């Protein structure tokens, strides 16, 4: 464990002056063990109103059929699949943080993985509701599964990417849920052992009888590592398959081999933006500035910058290939993005996703909380428009000009979308109320070596290269949770 000391030039992952194991527990469990504050109630009221709107709009859809949406014969997919792909993409960041960063031993993931994973689960729930509601007759959703039926049995077509998608999304959801819940067990046990009465009883059931013995931890770590190992290809496969829903068709604008990597990069991009949107607010409202530090914010911004640029390269490639292929339909589709009636959607897509995120090259921007938050919202908007452009702009002018049409959303379309955001935030706000938003056991691993407290001790003990200490102190300036003036005498 502590047999070696981490280099002083690395930035601390946990800040706070006198941080102890007990303080981590107290800080993280404060929102769980106490009545929620006003900010939570305001957020929850707004979010649950949104969720009510969703219930209403989806019920309306089920009652009157998808004729209540703005779809027509030419544009058969619009806000529904846009919303679906948007939500699935958002979900990807959670798995990226909890699985891929675990494999790469990125310890900064420890304080953000729990909430990001919760986000994954809630986002996939929102995505799944879109899939079911866009079927028009949602009770027929059962026929997506290879179940014996009275038509033969007529089995599902395993050659179809839509069926692959059913398998991918359901596997992704259930594996993420298992990964998340297994990780929660030690932390639920902490709540249990601090509680009393019925409160303790509930968490006792939820904790599965966790004790934290040596063998349990050993197996727990094996399970976490293997789940991370298999979730990594899983998460890549999910958005690859989502992209194949489009790429295996003969639709200009969809029929491109770049779609899988392009969609996966876009998913990570939008997912990290949503993590940023949520965590910047959460750390403030729950007072978790010492755990979700400026280092975390900057790291996530760097990932947003990288994936945003990858997406930008994919956009350019698409245009180049459309030109280079010589296919008239392909060329027209891409030209139509700018000169057609949906030019404004394309401007939103390229502007928000590629141009706006380039400002993150500047450290001042990356370490500015307000700007990070605004940029994360811009990316969320841009990525919604990306899916809208891919789906609606490609569909609305197909091979036969006589069938060209426009898509106009109805108020039901809009309500289902706004409502799904309400559902997402309702679930997230309930989550931070009843379960620890930060993986306590994992953060406790960082206390000795990777915390500001531990590093300070190292400095006080001496034996360090003064130039390295100076470098470390300079890095601390950007942290909003550290008072640098205290280091003057150290």
């Amino acid at each position, binding site marked *: 464990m502590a047999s070696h000391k981490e280099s002083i030039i690395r930035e601390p992952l946990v800040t706070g002056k006198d941080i102890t*194991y007990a303080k981590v527990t107290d800080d993280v469990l404060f929102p769980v063990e106490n009545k929620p504050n006003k900010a939570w109630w305001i957020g929850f009221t707004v979010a649950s109103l949104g969720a009510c709107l969703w219930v209403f709009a989806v019920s309306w859809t089920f009652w009157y059929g998808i004729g209540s949406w703005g779809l027509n014969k030419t544009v058969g997919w619009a806000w529904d699949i846009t919303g679906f792909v948007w939500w699935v993409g958002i979900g990807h960041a959670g798995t990226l943080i909890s699985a891929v960063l675990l494999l790469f031993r990125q310890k900064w993931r420890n304080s953000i993985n729990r909430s990001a994973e919760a986000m994954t689960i809630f986002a996939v729930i929102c995505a799944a509701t879109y899939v079911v509601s866009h079927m028009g007759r949602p009770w027929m959703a059962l026929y997506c599964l290879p179940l014996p039926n009275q038509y033969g049995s007529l089995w599902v077509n395993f050659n179809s990417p839509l069926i692959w998608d059913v398998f991918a999304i359901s596997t992704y959801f259930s594996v993420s849920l298992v990964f998340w819940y297994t990780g929660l067990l030690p932390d639920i046990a902490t709540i249990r*052992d601090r509680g009393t009465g019925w409160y303790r009883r509930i968490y006792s059931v939820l904790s*599965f009888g966790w004790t934290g013995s040596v063998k349990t931890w050993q197996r727990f770590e094996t399970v976490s590592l293997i789940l991370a190992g298999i979730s990594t290809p899983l998460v890549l496969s999910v958005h690859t398959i989502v992209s194949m829903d489009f790429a295996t068709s003969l639709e200009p604008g969809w029929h491109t081999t770049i779609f899988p990597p392009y969609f996966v990069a876009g998913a990570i991009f939008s997912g990290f933006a949503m993590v940023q949107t949520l965590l910047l607010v959460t750390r403030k409202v729950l007072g978790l500035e010492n755990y979700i530090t400026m280092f975390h914010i900057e790291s996530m911004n760097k990932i947003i910058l990288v994936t945003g640029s990858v997406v930008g390269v994919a956009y350019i490639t698409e245009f180049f290939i459309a030109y280079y292929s010589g296919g008239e339909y392909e060329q027209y589709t891409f030209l139509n993005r700018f000169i057609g009636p949906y030019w404004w959607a394309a401007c939103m897509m390229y502007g928000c996703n590629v141009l706006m995120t380039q400002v993150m090259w500047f450290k001042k921007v990356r370490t500015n909380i307000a700007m990070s938050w605004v940029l994360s919202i811009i990316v969320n908007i841009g990525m919604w428009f990306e899916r809208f452009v891919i789906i609606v702009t490609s569909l609305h002018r197909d091979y036969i000009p006589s069938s060209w049409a426009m898509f106009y959303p109805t108020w039901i379309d809009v309500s289902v979308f706004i409502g799904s955001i309400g559902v997402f935030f309702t679930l997230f706000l309930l989550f931070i109320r009843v379960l620890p938003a930060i993986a306590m056991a994992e953060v406790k691993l960082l206390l000795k070596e990777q915390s500001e407290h531990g590093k300070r001790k190292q400095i006080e003990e001496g034996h360090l290269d003064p130039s390295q200490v100076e470098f470390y102190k300079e890095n601390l300036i950007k942290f909003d949770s550290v008072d640098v003036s205290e280091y003057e005498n150290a």
Partner: protein
Amino acid sequence: MSSTKFILGLFDDPDEMMHGIDKLQKNSIPIYDVYTPMPIHGIEAKLGIKDSRLGYAAFMFGCVGGTTILSLVYYFLAHDWPMNIGGKPHFAVPDFIPVTFEWSVLFAAFGMTFTFFYATHLFPGRAPRVMDLRATNDRFVIAIDAKGNTPHEDITNLLKEAGAVEVKHNDRKYVSYE
């Protein structure tokens, strides 16, 4: 004869706890178990606990999952109701790789996790076998079965010397949850 069943050494620092384990082992005092709020690497080696074999379980479950879905797809599309799709083969293997992969992952994840729960006796509603309530919070607890011949004071002193912040002589094995 004292009624002490278990002696618990409570440490507030993992390194000192490791030191405590060494001290006890040097004095041939068997350690019953160690409870920590977070995974501490190196204890398994000291206590002689073998590596987890859950990886093998995961692999086997993954193989079962992949084989299951591929066999099912063969039955559905090549045996039970073969359909002529543009004259292409009924059993078009490349098309079935995505679902085979998904079920391999699904079975591996669920199989391994449930094996973990089964082997460790974790299930909803199980009464927690907790020896000290702070072991899930900020204490690193070494538990020693008090049945041995070593005088209890010696064990207490050893633990104190190693840096234990508190030593408990418990009459009951587990903290009651009733």
